[in-house]
Structures are given as structure tokens and as C-alpha cells.
């Protein structure tokens, strides 16, 4: 097991783009080697050691590497981008694009996450013990496919456009979400235990379950009997008819 602890020396105003901070990239590296890894800072690249105090215990493969951020990193973006194995634990708030395109492994955030959490995720797991912002598990601007696999669990609330263009995988939100969750999705499962507004517009495929209240249910859904999931019976709607969709929207 290799454990790498990173603590920010001084809160940064200009965001750090930490797409090189992944277990894949840290595995088997020494403190000095990790400190020398470059991250983008404004329009230039700087070594990670300029911003973080690095502590390393042990040396192991990516699967057995854990990165721990001590404290708030709310101006550090792209942590865990493209990671395929291992674990990242963030004990504080995190900036945008955390877990972007991740393929495997696990990210645990004990704080809030800014927008684009788990965007274009293909596998692995993200657990957010806090609130999320916009575009959780969505696609890059202009792409027709967002999250394709893996699971995002949000133990809190999320804002608008959750799971936009989602094509696979799973998102669970224990709290409320904002406007238009599951917009233009084409696969995957979204479960929202709280309330949602205008869910699943332009859904082509996939399953969306809303356990709380829905504001502004879209008129472009056809009611089609009931469906039972894990012992709970929901009203079943099929659509979005406007997009010729065959998605399933389950509501109480």
C-alpha cells in the first residue's frame, strides 16, 4: 500500500489544474518525484511541490495507491482526471472537473464539489459527502455522450443539468436536484431521492427515478401503468416523446 498525503501550503487564487494527480501517475514514485510532477497554474506549468507539502508512505502499484488531500482544495481542478485505479480522498471542497473521464478506482470527497463532477466518467466510483454543483456526470460541451459507466453517489444536493447526455452508469442523489436533471440522456440510471424540476427532457433512453416531488413535469411523457423497483411502486412514464425517446421516468 502506498499512501500519498497532499496538503496545500497556501490557499491559491488562480486555479491549479491537477490532471496529473492520479494514483496511476503517483504509483511507485518517491516524495521527490511526486513533488516534481508538473501541474498547470495559469498559463504555465509548475511542479506540484510548489503548492503542496507531500508525504509518502510505502510504494505500490496504482490499485494500491491512495492519495489524500488534507483540507480545502476548492481552487484545484481536474483531480483524478482519467484515473483507472486506486483511491483519492479529499477532505474539503474541490473545484471543477474532479474525476473527469475516470475509468476506474474511487474518489471520496468529504466536502462540496464544483461543476462537472465525474463528467464523461467511464468506470469507477465517486462518493460525494456534500453538495454538488452543475453538470454532474455530463458530457463535454458539444458531445452527444456524457457519463458512460461507473457510479456517482451524492449524499447531498445537486444543482442543474445532472447527468446531461448520460449514456450509461448510475447516479444516486440522496437530496434534491435543480433544473432539468437527465436532460438529453441516452442510457444509464439516475435515482433522485429528493425533489427535481422538469426531469428527463429529451430523454432517448435510460431510467430516471424521482422519489420526491416533481415541479413542472413535462407534458411530453406518456403514462404507461406502474413499475415496481425494490419494493416501491412508481407511476411509469415513457418518453421523451418529442425526441422519439423510449426512456423510463418513474415517479411517486
Amino acid at each position, binding site marked *: 500500500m502506498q499512501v500519498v498525503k497532499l496538503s496545500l501550503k497556501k490557499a491559491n487564487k488562480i486555479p491549479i489544474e491537477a490532471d496529473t494527480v492520479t494514483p496511476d501517475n503517483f504509483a511507485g514514485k518517491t516524495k521527490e518525484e511526486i513533488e516534481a510532477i508538473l501541474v498547470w497554474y495559469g498559463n504555465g506549468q509548475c511542479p506540484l511541490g510548489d503548492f503542496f507539502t507531500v508525504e509518502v508512505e510505502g510504494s505500490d502499484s496504482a490499485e494500491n495507491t491512495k492519495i489524500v488531500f488534507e483540507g480545502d482544495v476548492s481552487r484545484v481542478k481536474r483531480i483524478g482526471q482519467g484515473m483507472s485505479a486506486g483511491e483519492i480522498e479529499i477532505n474539503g471542497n474541490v473545484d471543477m472537473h474532479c474525476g473527469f473521464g475516470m475509468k476506474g478506482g474511487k474518489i471520496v470527497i468529504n466536502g462540496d464539489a464544483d461543476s462537472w463532477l465525474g463528467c464523461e466518467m467511464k468506470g469507477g466510483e465517486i462518493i460525494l459527502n456534500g453538495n454538488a454543483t452543475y453538470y454532474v456526470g455530463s458530457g*463535454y*460541451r*458539444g*458531445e452527444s455522450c456524457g457519463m458512460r459507466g461507473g457510479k456517482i453517489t451524492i449524499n447531498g444536493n445537486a444543482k442543474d443539468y445532472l447527468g446531461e447526455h448520460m449514456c450509461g452508469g448510475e447516479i444516486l442523489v440522496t437530496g434534491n436536484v435543480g433544473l432539468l436533471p437527465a436532460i438529453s440522456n441516452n442510457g444509464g440510471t439516475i435515482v433522485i431521492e429528493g425533489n427535481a424540476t422538469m426531469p428527463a427532457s429529451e430523454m432517448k433512453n435510460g431510467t430516471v427515478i424521482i422519489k420526491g416531488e416533481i415541479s413542472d413535469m413535462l407534458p411530453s411523457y406518456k403514462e404507461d401503468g406502474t413499475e415496481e423497483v425494490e419494493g416501491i411502486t412508481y407511476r411509469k412514464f415513457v418518453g421523451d416523446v418529442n425526441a*422519439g425517446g423510449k426512456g423510463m421516468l418513474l415517479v411517486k
Partner: protein
Amino acid sequence: MRMSEILIKNANVCDPAQGINCETMDLCIRDGKIVESVSESAEVIDAAGRLTMAGGFDGHTHSAGKINVGRFMNPNDARRTLVPGLSGPEARTEKTRAQVGYNTPNTYAIGYRYAKLGYTTICEAAIPMLAARHTHEEFKEIPILDKMGLSLFGSNWQVMEYVRDKEPEKLAAYVAWGLKASRGYGVKIVNAGGGEAWGWGKNVSGLYDPVPNFDVTPAEILMGLVEANEKLQLPHSVHVHCNNLGKPGNYETTIETMKMFEKVKPTVDRQALHVTHVQFNAYAGTSWRDFETGAPMVADYLNGANHLTFDLGQVIFGPAVTMTADGPVEYANSRMLHEKWSNQDIELEDASGVVPLSYSPKSFINAVQWAIGIELALLVEDPWKIMFTTDSPNGGSFVNYPEAFTYLMSAKKREQVISGFGKMALDRMVLPGLDRELSFYELAIMTRSMQSKMYSRPEKGNLKVGSDADVAIYDIITSDIDPSVEHEKVKQAFSGAAYTLKDGNVVVKDGKIEATPMGRTYWVNAKVPADIDSAMNKDTDIKFKKYYTVSKSNYMVEDSYLPNPVEIRTEGAF
């Protein structure tokens, strides 16, 4: 321009304009021009026997103007890295600015990447006159290349009224005025009349289907504009995107259109007609179910005709962005493919649309489209009639030109691609039976030499004494290579020129940008008798007062938009 002399030694020159077929010789350059000889003090570039051609000339590309709509519809295109070294994000360097994109690269990347392919001149295929200012703003930011653009006249109210009222002289005066207003180089006609019909949610179905409210037919618009084009003695012929583009069975309309121009007598030593992206207009069948190639019929006609040139519009598999003034076609595309759709109304002038799509070898329709472009290039015997294009980025991005060259030069390469097609696709094309392989000489004709006459730019597309010193040296020893087998090497060499010289400046060396001088913008100022001009202006004054959202004085592109203009004056034959 710096005063300098360059001697390119041991160049294996392929210059079809002079009939030079891969002969090793020296090239002399002084002050940006090819000359007979240079002094002892000339800078020496050793071509080491490598293939040397004039700078490439892409006479039909969408590189400024509408491409910007493509950019904002496809922000994801910025990160596409499908062609290494010629696509995707690249950080700025000391010599180059930041680059992004594949089908819709930023302006700087367009300049750098064409130069890396050994191209030095491009012609933007469609300038809506009302939006010409924007086209020139983009031209200003495309480095290295010389540029020109074709202005759209095919669905213009004033044009259609003059055609209807049989006022050929005023029509010619309007075309001259439009070219000046938009700083355009030639007359582009897109789906004649169709853009106006699209304003009413309709289209024209062929050459003799009248345009709503104007009582003229596409055939009359085409004939009216070609008469004006020749009256003005414009350096380029009319440049026509035929009616019924993208529809099965449209090859008949295409041939009919070509035939209509047989009687036209050009007033300049060039073709009477250029038909563009013929691949999209060479479809047989009656629906997408029985869709098949119409290339043999079109090629058969082209082989017997000597009054026209055409370009391919070759398809490249993968993502593309269609962008055209053919509004109804883009609506049909977006509905059929469930794709994003952008539509624009250019007031009294035309329509336009942009739809991103992806060509897949697994789709039999796309596979046949891919084959049609190549079939046209191989079935038409005379390469001087053919300009190589992908109608970038409609058929695919120009950065794929080197890949597409191998389709033309290697039957083996074609077999490789064709082996991935289904039986249905194979039944609908004739390509598998064609074994013709183009030579470097023929490729040079299609990519630079024929453009010289086609656009009346004698200083372009050749290495004659007096021509612009736009030179491309590729890392190919023609005597040692069999392009039929070593197609990968050919592609590699064309993907990054060993040297590209623009006006005698080394702009690319070993596939890397060395310098980024500003290119020229060519435009045509055609002379019209003063009395006809003022009569025409009275009519357009009314148009501006009654209909346009801008005033006439704000409509004209000012000189300040063209930092490096070349004004081509024509005398006219009134």
C-alpha cells in the same frame, strides 16, 4: 517582402503546367518570384532529389465565415486529435499561436495546417455578401496563405428580378457591384433559387421549377448569371453547386446542368463552368433504399465535354461538419440524422445551414458516397478537368488530404478500406473494378496546376519563371517509391512538407512552422459603364430602403478589412 535570393538545388520537379514530370533540376528564386538564375550569394536549400511541386491551391474550402457557426455548434471539435500533428489542441510556441480543432480549427491552425500540407492558396467557397465583413475578418487572421472568396448570387432578389425582367446589363452591373461590396473573387451559385424557396419552407425540385414569387427558374438564374459573368470577363467562371444536392437520382440534374452550359462562350481563356463537390451530386437510385453510384454516368458525360471543370467533394470517414448556403438540404440532413441544426436567413440574398455529422464505413450510404468521389477521379480521364477537394469540412477536414491522395494513388489502399464494407455497399458502387492509380504528376495537376487556369491566376500553381515562389518539397524520392504499395509513406510525406516556401520565404521546414507571413487577399473589381451602373444603383437603393436591415453605405466591405489586397481589374465587354 524581403529582398532575397534562394537556390533550391536537386529538386525533383513535378510541374505539369510546364510538362515537367519528376525531373531533377535547380529552382531559382528572387524577391518572391521564380527566376532564371540567381547570384553566387543566394541562400541554398538542398532538396536532395525530393519531390518538388508548386504550392497547393485549394479552390473550394469553407475556411472563413460559415465555419464559425460550425465552431460554436461543435465546441467538442476543439479537442479532436484524429490526425496527429494536424488536429487537436497545440499550445502556442515562439512562432505559432495556440491551435485547436479538426473540422473547424481556429483561424491560425487553418493557415499553419494548410502550409504543412504544402498548400499556399485557398478559396473560400461561399461568402454571403451581407456577412462578407466577417469573412474578411477571418481571412485577416489566417496566416501564410493567399486567399480569395466566392460571393453568393444564386438566390438573390435583385439577381432574380433582373433575370425575370431580362435586364442582362443591369444584372452584370449588380454582380460587379456585389463583388466589390463583398471584396469577392467570383460568382458562386448554390442550389439556384432554392435559398429563396427555403424562406417559404420549400425547395426547388430541379432546373425548371419556378422560384416562389419571382417567376424565374433555376435554369434562368444560372443562364443569367453566366451571361453576366462573361460580360464582366471575370477571372473565374460561375462556380455552381447544383440543384437537388444530396438526393438519390440527382445525377440527372447534374448532367442536365452541365449540358446547359455547352453553348456558353467564355470571354476569358478558361472553363465556362465549374461544378463543385460533384460527389454529392452524382447519386443514382430513386430513394435511400435503392441508392447507388451515379459516378459512371457523370464521368461518361465529363469525358466527352470540354467546357467545364469540377471538384470531387471526397468523403473521409469520421466526423465532418456540413455547411452550405443550401438551407433545405441542411434541414433534411438534421431531420434524417437526428443531428444538431443551425439555419440562417441572409435577408434578400440566400439561406444557409450547418449540420455536424459522421461518415461511417458501416453505413452503406456513406460507403457509397466515399466510393463516388474516388470513382469520379478515376473514371474521368483528363485530370486537368478535376480539382481535388473534400469540400472541407463537408466531406471531411482538409487535414485528411494526404490520406485521400493514397485512395487515388493506390488500389491496395482502396482494397483495404473496401474490405470493411458490407455486400450491399459493394453492389452499389463500381470502385472495386477500377484499377487505375494516379501518378504524382496527375496528383499535382488536381491539387495545384489546373487551378491556375481555372481561376486565371497564371502566377499560381506552377513553377514557371515569373510565377510566385510558392514551393512545396515533400520527403519522397519518386524513383525509389511505389506509391501503390508504399501508400503509408506517401501519406506521411504529404502530411508534413519537408519545405513549404511562400513567396520565397521558408514557412515550413520538416513539417514544422518556421515563419508566418501575412498572405494576400485577391478580389475582383469589374468595370461597368457609368450609365448602367447608376441605373442599377437606383434599383438597389430601393432594396436597401425597403428591405435590408443595414444601409447601403454600411454594407460595403471597406479597404481596411483587407490588409494585403490584390485588386484584379477587368474591362468588361458591354
